[in-house]
């Protein structure tokens, strides 16, 4: 897979999506790493391109892209597949792997804290620079190694997350606890992500507007590694935090952007992120007989 092809494809996709008249608002909190208890609506398919760029000290600048396909199987179960690639300055452009994830909401009513169970299988090389989460001992200096060496080291692992999330008065607060196990003989690795966000308006506008405050949300997130089962803790791993802003268009697409700042010497100074997604409503109706 050539990442450059998808880079050209994204602006074209955005233009096409702008022309579509269908209305729908995804209402997801503006996070890149943190998951909330908001699942995909049943029958909807969301296609997203998550882009990240950084220029770390002592390593070449890179750009990573992740294509996500998220489908709401039921109101309590969402399935998602990811395809990831990256390009590194003065090095190469490569496909780094894929992930298959499932999220289940076990409780049928809204509570003060809402749990979601997350189970994922991933097949990703060490050349991956998507930063979709951080587990174990992740240090930015590892990114200085050439893609040719990193890509041959493929990690197949099972990952679980406990997602806890709360909504109150327009605020969302979400906490994720991550545990990852390589299927080969490597120890459990841990990580965390915390996010908070708020919609810019508490009421919708009665006018038919495109850029009303109700379509914007602001927030922030903090995430990092927690080492392994043998050396659990915040030391010798990276931590990032930063603000995010999202525009949930009434025309089905969402754009989320924000910088994430490295908080210690193991982290890159800044990760620049941009996510563009489009939701195809009620895709399953295409496969049903007309009633």
């Amino acid at each position, binding site marked *: 897979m050539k990442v450059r092809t998808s880079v050209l494809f994204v602006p074209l996709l955005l233009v096409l999506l702008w022309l579509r008249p269908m209305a729908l608002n995804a209402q997801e909190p503006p996070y890149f790493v943190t998951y909330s208890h908001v699942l995909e609506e049943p029958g909807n398919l969301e296609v997203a391109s998550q882009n990240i760029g950084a220029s770390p000290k002592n390593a070449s600048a890179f750009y990573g892209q992740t294509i996500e396909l998220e489908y709401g199987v039921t109101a309590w179960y969402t399935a998602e597949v990811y395809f990831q690639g990256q390009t590194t300055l003065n090095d190469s452009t490569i496909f780094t792997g894929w992930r298959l994830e499932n999220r289940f909401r076990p409780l*049928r009513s809204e509570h003060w804290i809402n749990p979601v169970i997350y189970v994922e299988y991933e097949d990703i090389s060490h050349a991956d620079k998507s930063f979709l989460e951080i587990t174990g001992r992740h240090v930015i200096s590892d990114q200085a190694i050439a893609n040719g060496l990193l890509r041959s080291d493929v990690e197949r692992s099972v990952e679980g997350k406990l997602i806890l999330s709360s909504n109150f008065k327009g605020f969302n607060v979400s906490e994720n606890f991550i545990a990852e196990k390589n299927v080969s003989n490597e120890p459990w690795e841990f990580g965390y992500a915390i996010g908070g966000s708020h919609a810019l308006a508490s009421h919708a506008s009665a006018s038919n507007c495109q850029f009303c405050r109700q379509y914007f949300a602001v927030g922030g997130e903090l995430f990092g590694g927690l080492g392994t089962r043998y050396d659990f803790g915040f030391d010798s791993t990276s931590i990032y935090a930063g603000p995010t802003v999202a525009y949930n268009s009434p025309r089905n697409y969402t754009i989320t952007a924000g910088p994430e700042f490295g908080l210690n010497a193991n982290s890159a100074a800044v990760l620049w992120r941009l996510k563009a997604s489009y939701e195809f409503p009620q895709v399953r109706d295409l496969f049903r007989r007309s009633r």
Partner: protein
Amino acid sequence: MKRVSGVAAVMLGACVLMGAADGSWLKRVPAGDKAKVNPLAGQKEAAEAGEHLYEEACSRCHGKQAEGKGNRPTLISERMKTTTDGELAWLLRNGNSWKGMPSWSVMPDGERWQLVAYMRSINTPATAAGIAVEARKSDGAGQ
């Protein structure tokens, strides 16, 4: 054996789909929520804003005129007329996820009350009669 399993699966599916519109969720609404009153009740602007929210969040499943689609129920019905504002707001916040209705808790309270105001405005006797006529027409055209 395969045929028996198939029939069982179809029957189970049918039970689940019928359950989606049976109003059983009403039994789960706490008394405090049931008694809540829409702070935006009777405000024309709230219903108009609610209409936009409906188009954006609800119409793909429940139909542009809330007439229902497939196994997803109509939102213009006798039950909707007798359901309290508090019960509707509770359903929007909690959803009925085991029956297919997602939670809209991420939507601010004010927006959910606007949606309730819109639901109320389309559940007047005149609107319901108009929708019923439209439904009969489309049924006739389809036959």
